[in-house]
């Protein structure tokens, strides 16, 4: 039996997993990544929380989560969306509430991500929540940087994440 220490990745073994998703090259699509960076630099991330910027590579992590014998109790996805709301408006989405017709539109860098979130929630007992932020128009060329409304949303959303996940983790650890 191999003895090196790669039995389980932290994103499987820690009780709370927060995944940031986005493409930082395309304006507001980088909301999730910017929020992760803000949380890391402005808050103390508890040891029981795994905060990961998955960029455009979240599906590989979700595949591993689905198959892992050990999973977090709570999973938060942070991503930008286009739901036709006001730019900078941030809100929570429950995967089970996404209408079937919207599973395809709700693009977190392509299926089967949305399906896997539902499967995780419904078949494994992991609490899955999605924090989404409405983007402004996305650039048609490479242009890093958030619009002003979405930049404001990062600060507000970070406070919510800290209350819901960092404080809760601290309580759970006592």
């Amino acid at each position, binding site marked *: 039996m191999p003895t090196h220490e*790669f039995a*389980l990745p932290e994103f499987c073994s820690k009780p709370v997993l927060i995944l940031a998703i986005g493409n*930082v090259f395309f304006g507001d699509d980088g909301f999730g990544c910017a929020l992760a960076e803000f949380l890391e630099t402005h808050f103390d991330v508890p040891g029981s929380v795994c905060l990961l910027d998955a960029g455009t590579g979240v599906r590989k992590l979700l*595949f591993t989560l689905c198959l892992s014998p050990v999973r977090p109790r709570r999973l938060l996805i942070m991503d930008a969306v286009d739901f036709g709301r006001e730019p900078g408006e941030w809100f929570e989405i429950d995967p089970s509430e996404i209408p079937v017709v919207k599973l*395809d539109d709700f693009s977190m860098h392509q*299926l089967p991500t949305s399906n896997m979130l539902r499967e995780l929630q419904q078949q494994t007992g992991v609490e899955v929540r999605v924090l989404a932020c409405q983007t402004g128009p996305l650039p048609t060329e490479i242009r890093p940087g958030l619009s002003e409304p979405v930049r404001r949303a990062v600060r507000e959303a970070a406070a919510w994440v800290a209350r819901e996940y960092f404080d809760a983790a601290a309580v759970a650890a006592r």
Partner: protein
Amino acid sequence: MGKTIVIQPVTRIEGHAKVTIHLDDTGNVNQARVNVIELRGFERFCVGRPVEDMPRITPRICGVCPWSHHLAAAKACDAVFGVEPPPAGAKLRELCNSIAYMEEHILHFYFLAGADFLLGPDADYSVRNVIGVLQAAPEVARRVVRVRHMCAKMLEILAGKAIHPQAAVPGGFSKPLAKEERDQLRHMADEALELARFSIAFAKENVFPKYLDVVKSLGVITSGFIGTVRENGALNLYDGKLRLMASDGSYDDFPYDRYTEYIGEHIESWSYLKFPYAKKRGGFSLEDNAPGLYRANTLARINVCDFIDTPLAQAELEEFRQKFGRPAQLTLLYHWARLIELLYNAENAIRLLHDPDVTSLETRVKVTPRAARGVGCTEAPRGTLIHDYTTDAEGMITNMNLIVGTTHNNAPINLSVTQAAKSLIHDGKYDQGVLNRVEMAIRAYDPCLSCATHRLDGKMSVKLDIFDATGGLLDSFAN
């Protein structure tokens, strides 16, 4: 009146596709199409940017094959700047390629195709998913999770990060490999080889014999093939020359930068995905065994190579060819070929980690901007990946063309779906298992559609057209 059946989205592939099947008045399949509806536009995005940005930007095209785009971009930059990386730089790149391949092929066999083979194509849709695989084979799933995570850690050791790599740079590789790191990686590569050997043995004993009738019948078409080989004809997934083989086994070999002489690109109004074809062998045609038709990806690479220069994979190749000949045409053999490649990549990683060059401190050479065209090519897990850049004297991109792996398989995927649909749907009768088998024909190609499409506005269009048997549009929906 004829009827149109739509499968949308196609599950367990990367990217968005809609399958449209047109039935005639008797309820039999008249035509089937795989409509790609995912949009990108990276070729236009990159014009005007410094060429050395490409190895950093292109891995974010979709996040599925980041290493393939990263390395093809670095090679295109080498060509633009007119340099060759030193041996350590080239070998570190190739080592990362082999490790990334292992992670991808494991993901595909166990996660994407796994539900079909471990649970059966007729299993209820509610269990035919990744969680279902875990419940059906928990010990296998644990081992797979471990090795995939280990591959990610190997890439972190080599390149600093596994997601969105940056270590391959124009002229070589940015980070030398320390001997202590090399020793650590050797143990990990050994474990990856164990899983590779287990995987192909498991599949040959428990999967392929059980589904041999499906393998021999589902989505079967006749085509040529494209892949990369060394000068001596050996399989290589990082570097070499391109070999474009016809269905009779004859072939043309050519260097990457002459690909436009051999590969044409056709466009159809109903798909955002281009249709490459072998232009020296005939014009474009969406007909089975058309002279210009060819396939890429695992089965293609196994077919075009003369041999594999690692012993275990070579033994598997010999067994495969004894059973199925060369070139093998059965579409579901992509899965078998994928496992041969998994084995090759594990052996190749071990070979490179025992190569004294790999710990040399000379990993890169200097580069100077110039006006030039450069073509970089690697074999992405999903097929031959071509990055073609043109720069001005300042090194800014003035033109860019990408042919990504899945694009080569666009016409073959459509033909396989048509064949599968025709063989499985009769008199208007079908059920979920039959529809999933049609999807299986697509999944065998392991398509990734998200970077294969090219449009500028970035919107995703979803459209369902219903046609009657005479081709008249009955109804149209869009969101």
